[in-house]
């Protein structure tokens, strides 16, 4: 459905030094610098997949999405979306593609969303019956039916985002690019949008690329992620594998029963062989007080460490957790070199 081969984009921007004299000089001569936004990115996405595109600000996520949606032209490389070269903007492709870019409005602000939807019906030549059915379905799932006849500019941020989603999906696209769909929304609106995207995927099975800075978006919606670092694809694989491959440790949290004296068990203060990490190579205590012991242990030593804690301490509850996915991705983004999945 979506396929790219060594896709690259370099922007040339004018460098502007600070100060008045630099501005005067800039009237006569300007220095151009090349910014490599996307570097030789290759991947393939199939029908029904939601792929999370992750990276720091300026990593090239939005540029990549814009190229795939046909908005900007690449500097080098190839891409095919539903068999078409996206930047040739063939109408057959544009009728089956949608791009949702955060709060950048596709709708007409001075008019109710319902009017904008009617226009989109004409633009995409959606048959009357199908239009009514789809609009009714989308409006009910997003619980936005009452606001359809309110001027778009008078809607709340969350309501506007829902209207944007309807506008983008009315024509039943086979490929959907979601660029920061939950940015700026409150928690309940974020949840509603995520639930909706999942429901839409279940029903229509389009290929989706999602970019988001909210790890919860990625975790809830994507089984596969691609990590971009300085424009290059440094990881492409399953989300679950990221933790397995790149998090070399797990965190064990033990909630302890207080002893009669109320103080922490004496051995807890020790890092020696008699302490909780005794015999566990590479383990470390992250947090400890009278009732909580948190240790970080190598992935392969998890069972041994848990057993030792249970043996040594009066444990009321014990939890073994993967480290936070955001932290792992942050680590990958900081690292140098290839980490392809």
């Amino acid at each position, binding site marked *: 459905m979506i396929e790219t081969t060594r896709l690259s984009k370099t*922007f040339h921007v004018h460098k502007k030094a600070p100060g008045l004299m630099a501005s005067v000089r800039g009237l006569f001569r300007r220095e151009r610098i090349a*910014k490599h936004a996307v570097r030789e990115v290759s991947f393939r996405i199939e029908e029904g997949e939601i792929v999370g595109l992750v990276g720091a600000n300026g990593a090239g996520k*939005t540029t990549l999405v814009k190229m795939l949606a*046909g*908005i900007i032209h690449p500097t080098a490389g190839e891409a095919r979306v539903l068999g078409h070269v996206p930047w040739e903007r063939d109408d057959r492709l544009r*009728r089956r593609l949608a*791009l949702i870019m955060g709060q950048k409005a596709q709708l007409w602000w001075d*008019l109710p969303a319902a009017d904008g939807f009617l226009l989109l019906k*004409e633009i995409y030549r959606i048959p009357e019956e199908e239009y009514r059915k789809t609009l009714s379905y989308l409006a009910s799932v997003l619980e936005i039916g009452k606001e359809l006849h309110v001027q778009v500019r008078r809607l709340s941020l969350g309501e506007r985002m829902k209207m944007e989603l309807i506008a983008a999906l009315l024509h039943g696209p086979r490929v959907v690019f979601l660029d920061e769909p939950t940015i700026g929304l409150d928690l309940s609106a974020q949840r509603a949008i995520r639930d909706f995207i999942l429901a839409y995927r279940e029903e229509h099975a389009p290929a989706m690329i999602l970019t988001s800075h909210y790890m919860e978006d990625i975790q809830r919606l994507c089984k596969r992620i691609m990590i971009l670092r300085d424009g290059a694809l440094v990881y492409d694989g399953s989300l679950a594998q990221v933790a397995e491959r790149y998090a070399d440790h797990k965190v064990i949290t033990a909630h302890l029963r207080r002893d009669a004296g109320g103080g922490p068990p004496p051995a807890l203060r020790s890092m020696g062989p008699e302490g909780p990490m005794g015999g566990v190579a590479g383990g470390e205590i992250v947090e400890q007080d009278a009732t909580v012991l948190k240790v970080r242990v190598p992935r392969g030593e998890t069972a041994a460490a848990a057993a030792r804690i249970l043996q040594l301490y009066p444990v009321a509850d014990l939890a073994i957790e993967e480290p936070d996915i955001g932290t792992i991705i942050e680590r990958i983004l900081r690292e140098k070199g290839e980490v392809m999945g």
Partner: protein
Amino acid sequence: MSPRLFFRVMGLEARAHMSYRADFWTQAVVGFLGHFALAWFLWKAMFRESGREAIGGYDFPGMMVYYVTVLLLGKLVAGREYEAGVSGEIYQGTLTRYLLFPGRYLPFKYAQHLGSMAPSAVQVLLFAVVAALFTGLVPGPLEIARGALALLVGNLLHFLLSYCIQLVAFWADNVWSLEVGKRFIMTLLGGFTVPLAVFPAGMKPWLEALPFRFFYDFPVRATLGRMGAAEWALGIAVAALWCVALWLLGRWIWWRGQLRYTGVGI
């Protein structure tokens, strides 16, 4: 773009622009009455000081009729310069949605441009009725038909010229100065500031060759019955040629420019 979609876009834009009541009346009063009062006092003084009965073939009442017609028809040629939105769309990245829509950008913008003129059309109708009641001058059906076609061609030509200028936004960070230059030239050489008949005879071939006269002078004289059938037909043909030339130029600028479009931010 299908005619159905074209009219739907036009209708939607008309609705959006008709929703501003205060703006409608401010435009009507300032745009029409203010301009007319200025022309009245200026030409009254010029006729008095020069002591002439006619200037450029127009006596004072004729000059005022010319101005009323220029003010009315001028609104239907340039409208509210909606095409100015093109550069804004390039700068702000809202051009993106049009690149995603199946269909071409230019017809879409022209439909929006025509729709945005709905308030102007209502104002023109309103003032035309008032002007006809005051002066008793009502053009015949032939003049109205010729004027309407001249107006349509003038409108398209003006849109295409502005469109080409606006597309420069793909390269330049600001096209405002180009717009100001265009406005100055078209009001001076188009017959808005003074009728073209007032210009020296030596300038006539230049004024006729340039596209600007089709914005004001040509549709006004066609509506007032101040030109013969041959002159009108030749004018329409020249204006159509200008439209084709600007359309081709616009296509070329668009093709080159969209290669540079970033959709805001990189």
